[in-house]
């Protein structure tokens, strides 16, 4: 589904990603862990098409298409969704209007009919239950004045409504208390399926207790230094990132399992 090869990316003069390889197949959940500043969020944003990054080398293909040639909206229309680490406030645009516009834009791109506001309301209310969100939020401006936890839940509502094939969660757990974390994770788990994949970016292992990954990759200094199964996350929790970096095996960087 997604294949990243030798990806290098800069922001301004700084090289953040220094050769990343990753293959994600249908139905797989990959966790990307790593210390602050390792490039986790950059990788997530580059996949979604954030304009601040310059790609200097490597390739990213998605269903055989050159993802790097696609606009962010084309990527969304093709089924990629990024749950932002810092969801953006858009005062003046209601959640309902924003989501319906996005939902219809994606349907339109797929050659499907747009839905009217009433039909859409039914879709929304069902999805909001997934993360235990008050339907009154629909009429509030997107993320404006939301608490940190509300913003993260709102990302998951969007994820549920837009129903992507590849979901990328960028530190969705940060700033959530344990109850909210469970609600969000349950919401994500209900959206898993054999045709759907996810990349879960997180600093801490605890989210992975709830969203159990198939693979765990450790990013440090812009490269994958270790890859393994879900038990790698537990090891990391025990020993910390310093341990990984000082015990990096020679084969580090082999995030791809070709």
């Amino acid at each position, binding site marked *: 589904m997604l294949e990243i090869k030798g990806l290098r990316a800069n922001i301004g003069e700084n090289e953040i990603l220094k050769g990343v390889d990753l293959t994600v197949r249908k139905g797989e959940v990959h966790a990307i862990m790593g210390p602050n500043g390792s490039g986790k969020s950059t990788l997530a944003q580059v996949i*979604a*098409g*954030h*304009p*601040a990054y310059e790609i200097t080398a490597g390739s990213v293909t998605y269903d055989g298409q050159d993802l790097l040639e696609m*606009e*962010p*909206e084309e*990527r*969304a*229309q093709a089924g990629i*969704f*990024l749950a*932002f680490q810092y*969801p*953006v*406030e*858009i*005062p*003046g*645009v209601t959640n309902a209007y*924003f*989501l319906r*516009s*996005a*939902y219809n*834009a*994606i349907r339109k*791109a797929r050659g499907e009919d747009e839905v009217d506001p009433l039909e859409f309301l039914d879709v929304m209310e069902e999805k909001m239950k997934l993360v235990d969100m008050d339907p009154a939020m629909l009429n509030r*401006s997107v993320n404006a004045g939301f608490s940190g936890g509300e913003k993260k839940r709102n990302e998951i509502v*969007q994820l549920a409504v*837009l129903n992507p094939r590849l979901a990328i969660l960028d530190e969705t757990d940060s700033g959530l208390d344990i109850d909210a974390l469970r609600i969000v994770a349950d919401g994500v788990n209900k959206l898993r399926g054999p045709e759907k994949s996810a990349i879960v970016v997180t600093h801490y292992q605890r989210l992975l207790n709830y969203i159990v990954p198939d693979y765990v990759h450790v990013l440090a200094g812009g490269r994958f230094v270790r890859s393994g199964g879900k038990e790698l996350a537990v090891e990391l929790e025990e020993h910390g990132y310093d341990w990984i970096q000082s015990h990096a095996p020679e084969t580090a960087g082999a995030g791809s399992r070709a």
Partner: protein
Amino acid sequence: MTQPETAVAHYLEAFDGIDGGEADRIRELRRAGMDRFVALGFPTMKNEDWHYTSVAPIATRSFDRTSFPSTVPSTDLDPFLFDSPEWPRLVFVDGWLAPELSNVPPRAGIDVSNLRPSLVDGSVDAALLGTIADHDTVGFTALNTALMQDGAVIRIGANVELETPIHLVFVSAQPVPLAASFPRNLVVLERGARASVIESYFGLRDESYLTVPVTEISLGEGARLEHVKVQNESAVAFHVGTIEAVQQRGSELHSFSYAAGAELSRTNVYTVLNGPGSSCTLNGMYMVSGVQHVDHQTRIVHAQPNTTSREIYKGILDGRSHGVFNGKVYVRPEAQKTDGKQSNNNLLLSDHARVDTKPQLEIFADDVKCTHGATVGRLDEVALFYMKSRGLDAEQARTLLIYAFAADVLETIPVKPVRDALEAAVFARVRGEELQLTSE
């Protein structure tokens, strides 16, 4: 900058040509206006109140005061009636009442008429005329005072509540260039009265013309007026208008000024909170492109204790347009417990658009709470990316973001059909401008 004497002389000539037959007080008022205009001339950019706006394009042309009533087909007005043709309305074509287009059903306690007859017979309401708007120091108000043609006189009796807005429609329709009209309105709300008044200005032809309206407002104790001005003049027109109010104890003024038309426009909104506990909300929105110049000056005088003012003006500027905002708030020594908030936010959609914003607080009392702020910014790239990452294309994202910028101030327009119409107009214009922007 040299003073364009010729244009001043041209208006003196127009003044001399005004038919007699008016009441003595009115003749004196006109004369006072003309004398002051001749003395003041057109303002130059050395004048602090006109620092960012050159009126040279007006001052150097000789606009002709229209001297006779004319008319337009009623269907021409339809797009400008906010889908509310049932509202009582007075329509002025090129400055003069068009009775066949106007309709004001009589109602007890409410007096709505045109100014013209009062100028002739010097009746009671005309006695207030010229006592609120300052024609001593403001040149364009002096010019209006000298050359006023017609306008609306509205008096709402004590404790009368008017549910339906009164719509004053000022349409320019001269088929020849350089026509000028000088509408003059007087709105009086007696103690406890409530009303909504809408003023619309627009042009039906693409000729250059000048509109210089003045509206005087008197609010009695506890009166509440919602006032909306909609300036949609044609793209080659000039518009310099003043709204000036005096408010008594406990009265409320809710003013909204929308400016989207004219090559060059200036709107002054002035009020004096002259009674304890009086309050005003002066909000506005301007949206311009191409080479348009739009200027707002507001002035709130807190003259008595416990007075409150709220003010939000927002601007959207595209192309090579230039926006100006100057918001003055004066707190006089006796105006303790003043509560004032002012903000002006601008969104630049092009590298060549420009904004000059100047909030101005002058506080002479010690127990007051006043804040002000101004911003000039561009579309937020991160927000655009966020929206695109949800599947919206670049234009949708841009449109929605611009609209969102405007939405919170448009929401404050106090009359719903006007609010709906202006929201739709802004939305349509945001979409349409995309093409214009890329072609520039």
